[in-house]
């Protein structure tokens, strides 16, 4: 058993992760749903009563409960990995990424899963931390509903069904992502 746990605990290469993601999508289709995570944000809005003053949230959210149960599974999966399947190894980033991050002033790139100088409660009280966590989160929630899907709904499900709208959305993801990474983040890290 220990050998199995040790084996699974190593970082997974892309050629393991990609096929498992395809299998997850396939399973959800076979369950009669579609693979798309961000819809659960709309479901939560509906559950807490946003449907009262906005028709966009006025739908039968009970039919979408599976999406929240799936999200609960995601939290559990993260917890299990954190508690039982971790290795002391750090995220093995490419040398050029490490050099770029050092230039931005990010300490020990890849030492943790996320840079703690941003992802901490103390950081939330700083201008930079607030912008990244609050504005960043807002853009995700707004953009994903506007585009009708996120990475799972468009980049995985939509492209798998060869849907042109999803390709346009993915091009949009990259326009936004590249603009942020090359032009905005370097400025944010000077704050």
């Amino acid at each position, binding site marked *: 058993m220990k050998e199995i746990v040790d084996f699974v605990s190593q970082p997974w290469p892309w050629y393991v992760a990609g096929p498992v993601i395809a299998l997850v999508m396939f399973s959800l289709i076979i369950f009669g749903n579609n693979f798309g995570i961000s819809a659960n944000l709309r479901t939560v809005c509906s559950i807490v009563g946003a449907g009262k003053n906005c028709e966009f949230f006025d739908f039968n959210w009970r039919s979408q409960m599976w999406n929240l149960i799936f999200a609960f599974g995601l939290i559990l999966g993260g917890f299990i990995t954190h508690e039982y399947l971790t290795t002391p190894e750090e995220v093995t980033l*490419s040398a050029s990424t490490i050099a770029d991050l050092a230039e931005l002033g990010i300490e020990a790139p890849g030492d943790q899963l996320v840079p703690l100088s941003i992802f901490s409660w103390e950081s939330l009280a700083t201008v930079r931390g607030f912008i990244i966590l609050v504005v*960043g989160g807002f853009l995700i929630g707004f953009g994903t509903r506007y585009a*009708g899907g996120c990475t799972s709904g468009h980049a995985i499900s939509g492209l798998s069904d060869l849907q042109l709208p999803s390709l346009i959305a993915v091009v949009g993801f990259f326009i936004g992502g*590249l603009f942020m990474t090359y032009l905005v983040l370097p400025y944010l890290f000077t704050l």
Partner: protein
Amino acid sequence: MKIFRYIIVGIIFGITLAKAEVISWYRIYEMFKFQSFHMYGVIGSAVILGIISVQMIKRFKIKTIDGEPIVINPKQMSISRYLFGGIIFGLGWAMTGACPGPMFILLGNGVGVILVVIASALLGTYTYGLVRNKLPH
């Protein structure tokens, strides 16, 4: 039991994205800098196998686990909605290094402050609902 199957698939997906470091802010930064093949390999191989499985479902008219026919609805065609929405999403994705799935996985991983990102994303979704009639779709 239906609840059980979604939890199991969710756990598998959570462990996979965590162990492949897809939930790492650093990996998303590296992807947008085109400095590693890792994320492209993850998404690319998932899509290639996804295309094959969707084609199989359509060709062999595979039914759901409950015996219902599978219908995959084509998305309504538009450019502005997907492009503008996609750009806004991409800005947030590169900023936080997390898309909607990884947010929840990071929470399980003990990154508590991600709750702020989740709450902000809910607010963003709610705001979209309020102003959507004024946006080009």
